[in-house]
């Protein structure tokens, strides 16, 4: 039976429900030291004096590291640049006396116990010379400038050049909608605290258990920064307690843990506390402006989308906020623009559906507004402007079953029961609203290597350095490998989360399954060739066989009437495992002619208390076209997760910035509100059939982000339908809805 397409339960499930799964802060070894970080309490300036004496005198404290006694590290910015570094000079922990953002790590207290390190950290006193700072984006919109370009620009190209004459087309448009959208800062807040446990073997070799989305990314970073041979640095991350982008770049606890371990020649664990989880990357504040024009019949003729986002003073982090509209709606006249304002904050970092979930809110709320002006059903307006051609790239999509998402989604949701007018549906004290929106995300694929090996017990071993941050990578890769050889799941062992395994890029952007899955297909093909070679020398029946004529099934290799077991093939190889490591890569030449994207449509019902403003998402459906679904169970959970994030983004979560103090005020999970169980009502996912013969060997896209792009605007649109009130600032708190 084919494993791909089966709703197989997570293979690591038992370990997770029994507490046996070990995360990076759970490798306990004798004589482990604990590090606790001290953070700057000012936003900008210089450390004049840092008083460490009291902490150093505390029983149990081994050493206090500051910029004054930090061991030497690499000189050049390049050496601190990881795979996900934006253009600029990456932040270097404990580099010098300069303070660039509030909460910047300024000292590490290392002690024999966690408690002593924590107490020591509370005893550090600092004299600062403060300088004026700016952290409020809205105050500095006029300082917006073009982002710098760099390596990261390859994955996130700037918006396409203007087409046609937007201003003229917009002026002439029969119907127009325009709006300003504001989004605040958000922090990833995975449930697991960022932790690194560095084990020092006595001779300079390090085994590092790190919370990361890229074992090799961290291995290279540590090697470069500390001048170590890569062979002496092993980064292991078998279980990662959520990351959502926060683990794409090496975080400062990795640097500090390794620094202390090398200096003290001891094992050192550094764990950030929850408030320190608000001192690294975040989703940036943004302001967006849209102007869309349409004909009386609803054809979009003009699209203008501008975004201004914050970045730090030392790196130009960009994410694609304003690129998306012409990828969805063909319009002859487009004008897209993305700018940055550097502020005295840490660099933003990719956070689940970076840019997409910000930009799509503006696009899809503007489309919704247009639909009411046109008096055309919002779904109908999308269908009027439907195209399988990407006007932004001037290419067709390799596949695009978005129309089926619209139609099947609307049918299952009961969209036809919606009455057109706002405030026209009621239930008790509640105004009821229906809203919908479109979602899109890139279907990317990067090169990666994989090893495939058959051992003398007939089992298939597949290996990749890739992590599994909770998305189901272990299960899905096992399914892909099993099908390559027609094996049951239990005969396949997938090893992952270890930098000593074959290269995989960071895990993010919804590209992991396509990237590592394709590498497994390539390695499997190569392994089959090797097996055939062995068969040819040991079994005359296979003499004329070509690799593509082989069939693998139930532990057998079959060619016409001939068969040989995998066990026999390894035996014929003198009991030595048959092994190969190969590079899997996208077919650039073939793909050049196509645009690639995953699509979705979300339908949402909300109830808004007319008197009190409280909002409840009572039910929602997201229909997804993402190519072939390897595992409908784990894929569904990914999309459901994105839908919960949508509720969070639209209605709850925000990092509150006090611009007077230049710092975030709700650095905790009591006041940084993410949804609780009581907030989640009926959620449903529908995968529409989508065949893609172009995109990669497996016909797969990715579902990590697409659950979070359509639903936030669908919620805002449903609130408008319920109340007649258009709120363009997220999160939509109930106090914005009490003047109904």
């Amino acid at each position: 039976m084919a494993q791909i397409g089966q709703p197989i339960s997570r293979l690591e499930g038992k370990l997770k429900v029994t507490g046996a799964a070990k995360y990076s802060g759970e490798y306990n070894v004798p004589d482990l030291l604990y590090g606790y970080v001290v953070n700057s309490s000012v936003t900008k300036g210089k450390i004049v004096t840092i008083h460490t004496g009291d902490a150093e005198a505390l029983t149990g404290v081994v050493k206090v590291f500051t910029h004054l006694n930090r061991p030497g590290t690499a000189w050049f910015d390049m050496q601190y640049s990881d795979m996900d570094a934006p253009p600029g000079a990456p932040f270097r922990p404990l580099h010098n006396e300069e303070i660039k953002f509030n909460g910047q790590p300024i000292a590490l207290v290392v002690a024999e116990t966690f408690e002593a390190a924590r107490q020591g950290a509370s005893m550090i006193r600092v004299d600062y010379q403060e300088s004026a700072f700016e952290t409020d984006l809205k105050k500095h919109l006029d300082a917006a400038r073009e982002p710098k370009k760099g390596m990261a620009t390859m994955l996130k190209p700037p918006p396409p050049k203007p087409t046609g004459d937007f201003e003229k087309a917009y002026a002439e448009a029969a119907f127009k909608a325009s709006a300003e959208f504001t989004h605040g800062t958000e922090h990833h807040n995975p449930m697991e605290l960022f932790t690194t446990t560095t084990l020092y073997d006595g001779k300079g070799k390090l085994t590092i258990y790190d919370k990361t989305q890229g074992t090799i990314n961290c291995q290279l970073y540590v090697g470069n920064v500390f001048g170590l041979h890569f062979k002496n640095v092993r980064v292991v991350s078998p279980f990662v307690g959520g990351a959502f982008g926060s683990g794409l770049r090496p975080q400062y606890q990795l640097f500090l843990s390794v620094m202390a371990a090398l200096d003290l020649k001891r094992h050192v664990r550094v764990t950030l506390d929850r408030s320190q989880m608000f001192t690294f990357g975040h989703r940036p504040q943004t302001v967006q402006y849209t102007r869309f024009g349409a004909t009386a019949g609803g054809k979009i003729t003009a699209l203008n989308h501008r975004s201004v986002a914050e970045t730090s003073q030392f790196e130009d982090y960009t994410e694609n906020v304003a690129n998306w509209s012409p990828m969805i709606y063909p319009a002859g006249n487009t004008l897209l623009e993305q700018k940055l304002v550097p502020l005295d904050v840490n660099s933003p970092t990719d956070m689940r559906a970076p840019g997409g979930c910000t930009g799509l809110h503006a696009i899809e709320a503007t489309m919704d507004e247009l639909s009411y002006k046109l008096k055309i059903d919002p779904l109908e307006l999308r269908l009027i402007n439907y195209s399988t051609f990407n006007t932004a790239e001037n290419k067709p999509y390799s596949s695009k079953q978005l129309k089926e998402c619209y139609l099947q989604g609307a049918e299952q949701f009961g969209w036809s029961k919606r009455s057109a007018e706002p405030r026209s549906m009621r239930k008790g004290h509640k105004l009821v609203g229906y809203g919908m929106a479109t979602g899109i995300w890139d279907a990317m694929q990067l090169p990666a290597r994989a090893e495939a090996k058959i051992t003398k017990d007939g089992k298939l071993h597949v290996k990749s350095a890739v992590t599994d941050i909770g998305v189901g990578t272990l299960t899905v890769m096992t399914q892909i490998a099993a099908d390559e050889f027609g094996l049951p799941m239990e005969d396949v062992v997938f090893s992952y989360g270890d930098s000593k395994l074959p290269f995989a890029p960071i895990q993010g952007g919804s590209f992991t399954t396509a990237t590592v899955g394709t590498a497994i297909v390539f390695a499997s093909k190569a392994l089959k060739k090797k097996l055939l070679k062995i068969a040819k020398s040991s079994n005359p029946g296979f003499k004329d066989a070509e690799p593509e004529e082989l069939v693998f099934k139930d532990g057998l290799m079959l060619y016409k009437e001939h068969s040989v077991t995998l066990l026999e093939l390894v035996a014929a190889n003198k009991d030595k495992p048959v092994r190969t490591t190969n590079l899997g890569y996208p077919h650039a030449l073939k793909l050049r002619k196509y645009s690639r994207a995953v699509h979705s449509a979300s339908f949402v019902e909300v109830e808004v208390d007319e008197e009190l403003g409280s909002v409840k998402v009572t039910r929602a459906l997201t229909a997804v076209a993402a190519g072939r679904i390897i595992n409908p169970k784990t894929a569904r959970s990914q999309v459901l997760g994105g839908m919960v994030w949508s509720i969070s983004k639209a209605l709850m979560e925000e990092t509150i910035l006090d611009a007077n103090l230049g710092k975030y005020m709700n650095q905790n999970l009591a006041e940084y509100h993410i949804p609780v169980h009581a907030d989640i009502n009926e959620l449903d996912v529908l995968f529409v059939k989508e065949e893609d013969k172009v995109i990669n060997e497996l016909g797969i896209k990715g579902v990590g982000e697409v659950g979070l792009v359509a639903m936030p605007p669908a919620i805002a649109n449903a609130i408008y339908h319920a109340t007649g009130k258009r709120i363009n600032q997220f999160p939509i708190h109930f106090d914005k809805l009490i003047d109904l």
Partner: protein
Amino acid sequence: MNNFSYQRAATLSDVVGKSTFVAGGTNLLDLMKYNLSNADTLIDVNALTDFHAIEEVPDGLRLGSLATNADTAYDSLVENRYPLLSKAILAGASAQIRNMATNGGNLLQRTRCYYFYDAHAPCNKRVPGSGCSAIKGYNRNMAILGTSDQCIAVYPSDMSVALSALDAVVNVSGLNGERSIAFEDFHRLPGDTPEIDNNLQPGELITSIDLPEKTFTKNYSYLKLRDRSSYAFALISVASALELEGDTIQEARIALGGVAHKPWRVKEAEQYLTGKKTDRQNFAAAADIILQGAVGFEHNAFKIELAKRAIIRNCIMALDPSTQLPGAQPSA
């Protein structure tokens, strides 16, 4: 968090005149980990068995200060005779915290003001004289009633809002013996000394909370408005208890949470409702009286109007307590 020596008190005499006490620990240890509170010696009072009970007393019910919030909310005497108190307790925190937190500790929990919780921000409650960052800062969850130019923090307890409405009495024991404090006199307004949350004297221990005879078992409701449906502090909460004869109000009690440095009750409003019909206009007029003198700040002015609406809704919900939902959410 500093280290401390730890003692277990066996009798009340081990306790009075001393500090610092730990019972549930859910607020104290939180504060200590943020270095916002400190103790040389922590005295664990959990072994004082006299104060765990929930028992009938001649004029009502006595809640031991060391009974947990959950044991109190689910106690059949409380459920049957003071259902408003049950509902309010269950609207607070999480099931786990309610299993640990005690009644005495609930009364003593400190504000959730962001600036109080930030060890580096100016805050008169934390460091007297350092200034109030909230007045000109982000004040969406701050007070609108009884504020001073020193402090606009809010007292966060749900349980206390119901206790206030029910006219509870707090019994304390100290070096000078025992005394009883009317609930409205227990917590205080910030004034010029916002560092002092309540009128408990140093060395005093809350031993019990008395609930008087008046129970309001037929018409009561607790409503809590917050940014998520559960496990969040109130932006506004309302406890309403009514005694009716037909559709005429014999007695009304209304207390607000999330709006001031203490549970907010205005007796004039309750008197206004006495003898009136249970209609919306009368509840609205009472709400106007309660919110008299309310002053909003940059981000929380909405609370004034919202509090009025919450009072009206909750009084209407009290007419039919079956309209109450889990998490004290607004009625359907």
